């Protein structure tokens, strides 16, 4: 794995970079989306349909080793030859993260000093670093994250401190057991406590890892407290200096104490889903994101529809509220689509929009046919990859802040209008 930052957005921490992963045919530009999978394959998009998604930016797949725990033995996975062989996806990059944020979630009450606990479809599972690394060694992902003790936003300071201590210790344990080949991303936790976040980042900064996984998000924290928590681990010294220079005499001292995660290494986050949340993450300097949002949209019968191409453009005018949407998405279960023979997004180049109408997807949802989920996952993934492309362009043009403000503003306008309509 190789990563380099190519551009910083004017006056901000948003950054555009390039990530090279051994098995991917061409470099992947960041910020980028990792496709959410179930046992290594997208939830509904079968492998022969995957190439219809934009390449190479659809080539990073997130996989949870827990999906294989007690389902396939590490020996069998090793015999087959690891994830790339197991899934027949040789030109894809696999990123292993313990939790999948859908069915496998951290269960902090049962996590203890020997291992991390998760709720899984097969019940509660306690995974020790040794077992976890056995799975990682057999799966041979391109990138893997260390085991973490993730806690929700509401735990006590003491529990949070324990979580950071454990996570830091497990980084060392995992790294010692690490297989050859894969790049390790050290886990950075600290819940909703800025001091703990900083402490974790600082300790992590000196460890021998190739990148960082920022954990503990999407676990009950509010959107408002997120920027401070993210900045606590990603703020660069130089910028700290710039911000505090005129107002605070201790700025230089502050800079020395608060070492953040080194900026030359990639940062991956899980648990930020909505476009607004992803924008927060990108603004704070995050490079890689999970995509459980797409999974939830797809299961709910939603399709993303917001405009992508130019950040100056406003979102489409809201229609009446019976579309079941909110300006960024529509609900295809809504009866207004019963006879709608247009594609989800007229200009969309995805397989779904090139081949099927809203009326057909509405019918498939009505009769509970799986093809609905297949078509929606394809469109939503395609669309969200487009959103990431737009963000990258705006960063490269130095206009990320403008893009972000426009996006948020037009959403607000839309919601206001929709309220008036209703």
């Amino acid at each position, binding site marked *: 794995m190789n990563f380099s930052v190519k551009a910083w957005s004017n006056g901000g921490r948003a950054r555009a970079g390039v990530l090279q992963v051994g098995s991917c045919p061409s470099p992947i530009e960041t910020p980028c989306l990792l496709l959410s999978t179930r*046992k290594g394959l997208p939830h*509904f998009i079968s*492998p*022969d349909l995957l190439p219809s998604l934009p390449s190479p930016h659809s080539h990073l797949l997130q996989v949870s080793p827990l999906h294989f725990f007690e389902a396939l033995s590490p020996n069998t996975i090793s015999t087959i030859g690891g994830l790339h062989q197991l899934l027949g996806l040789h030109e894809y990059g696999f990123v292993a993260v313990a939790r999948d944020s859908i069915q496998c979630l951290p269960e902090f009450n049962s996590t203890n000093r020997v291992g991390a606990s998760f709720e899984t479809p097969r019940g509660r599972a306690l995974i020790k670093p040794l077992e976890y690394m056995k799975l990682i060694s057999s799966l041979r992902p391109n990138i893997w994250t260390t085991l973490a003790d993730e806690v929700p936003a509401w735990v006590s300071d003491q529990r949070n401190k324990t979580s950071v201590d454990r996570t830091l210790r497990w980084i060392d344990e995992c790294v010692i057991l690490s297989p050859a080949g894969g790049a390790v991303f050290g886990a950075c936790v600290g819940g909703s406590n800025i001091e703990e976040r900083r402490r974790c980042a600082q300790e992590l900064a000196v460890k021998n890892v190739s990148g960082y996984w920022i954990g503990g998000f999407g676990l009950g924290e509010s959107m408002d407290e997120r920027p401070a928590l993210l900045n606590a681990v990603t703020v660069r010294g130089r910028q700290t200096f710039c911000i505090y220079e005129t107002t605070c005499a201790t700025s230089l001292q502050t800079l020395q104490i608060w070492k953040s995660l080194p900026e030359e290494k990639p940062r991956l986050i899980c648990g930020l889903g909505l476009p607004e949340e992803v924008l927060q993450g990108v603004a704070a300097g995050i490079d890689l994101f999970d995509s459980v949002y797409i999974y939830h949209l797809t299961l709910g019968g939603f399709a993303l529809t917001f405009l992508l191409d130019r950040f100056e453009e406003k979102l489409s005018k809201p229609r009446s509220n019976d579309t079941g949407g909110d300006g960024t998405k529509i609900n295809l279960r809504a009866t207004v689509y019963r*006879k709608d023979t247009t594609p989800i997004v007229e200009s969309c180049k995805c*397989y779904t929009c090139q*081949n099927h109408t809203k009326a057909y997807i509405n019918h*498939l949802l009505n009769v509970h046919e799986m093809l609905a989920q297949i078509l929606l996952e394809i469109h939503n993934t395609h669309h969200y990859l487009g959103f990431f492309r737009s963000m990258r362009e705006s960063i490269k043009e130095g206009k990320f802040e403008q893009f972000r403000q426009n996006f948020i503003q037009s959403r607000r306008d839309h919601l206001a209008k929709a309220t008036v309509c209703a």
Partner: protein
Amino acid sequence: MALRFEVLGRFNRARAAQLTLPHFLCQTPLFMPVGTQGTIKGLTTTQLEDIGCQIILGNTYHLALRPTSELIDELGGLHKFMNWPRALLTDSGGFQMVSLLHLADITEKGVTFQSPVDGKPMLLTPEESIQIQNRIGADIIMALDDVVKTTITGPRIGEAMRRTLRWIDRCIAAHKRPHEQNLFGIVQGGLDPVLRDECVRGLVARDLPGYAIGGLAGGEDKDSFWRVVAQCTTTLPEDKPRYVMGVGYPLDIVVCSALGADMYDCVYPTRTARFGTALVPEGVVKLKHKAMADDTSPIDPTCACMVCKNYTRAYIHCLVTKDAMGSQLLSYHNLYYMMTLSRDLHSSIIQGRFPEFVCKFLQKMFPKGDVPQWVCNAMEVAGIDISSCCAPFFSSQG
């Protein structure tokens, strides 16, 4: 008539033909997967084309309920609605009602049933069935018939057959798109050769574009099953397609093709996939089985499908019956298997090596030579020598 049927090759009773339908040029014998609600469960239309599907079946009863035939018509027909460029076939809706609804009753007027929507009594007449199918717009539409279980005996069988004949005239009269859609008549008559014969003669007199053999695959014994098929295929016209409804298993398809049938439909390959069963030349592989967890071979090493080229039994084992992808991948393989079987039947007949194909097929499925007696009996009538794949001990069993 909106089809052309050209026999390209024969081996005794078996035939390989080219069936030209309004939307596709098909090669027979062929298997038609069932896409009840305007989709084959878990597969895109592009995948179905990749797999080689030629005709897909839609169920009139389900489509009439949702999204309704009026809506399909308004949006340009089922082909356009589901974006399927190749051929479609719809059933009459009668069989679905009788099999799905407890309160269905058949009178001279039609099939009466309780609406599953509001419980009100409803009536599906032959005229209505055709009208609905005209709106859906499939390449082949089926006449409404009076279906009785093959296991039933007595005068009801004869009554149903004669009613089916009376209804065919009402269907023909109601058919508004004979130049775009082909109305197939259905041979009824249970397991009674006299009734079957009367029905065939009655239908042939109407000179329909094609004929179906109905009322089978409903629990009758296998010997009765193939004998009805054999009887009908000898009396039905040579220059018209013959469709055995609700069949089925690969073995049944091979036997029926040897007897001169051309078309088949069944939910089995996709339904069994959802329960974790794969079709292979040796029979079936149950991927749920514990032994599969460590099996690193493909589902079928001789299969060239996307699934067998990429996946191990072990991986499919951990998906089946738990994850959507499990049934998607298995359905893909199973349909690929059925399409390969169809193609092999077609080409082996054309190339004059049909008996060799049948023997190889039976050898794989019955490696010990224990070919079922009914298959041996049918093959004798079909004039296919299968002695090379039958163990003497088994073939001598009566």
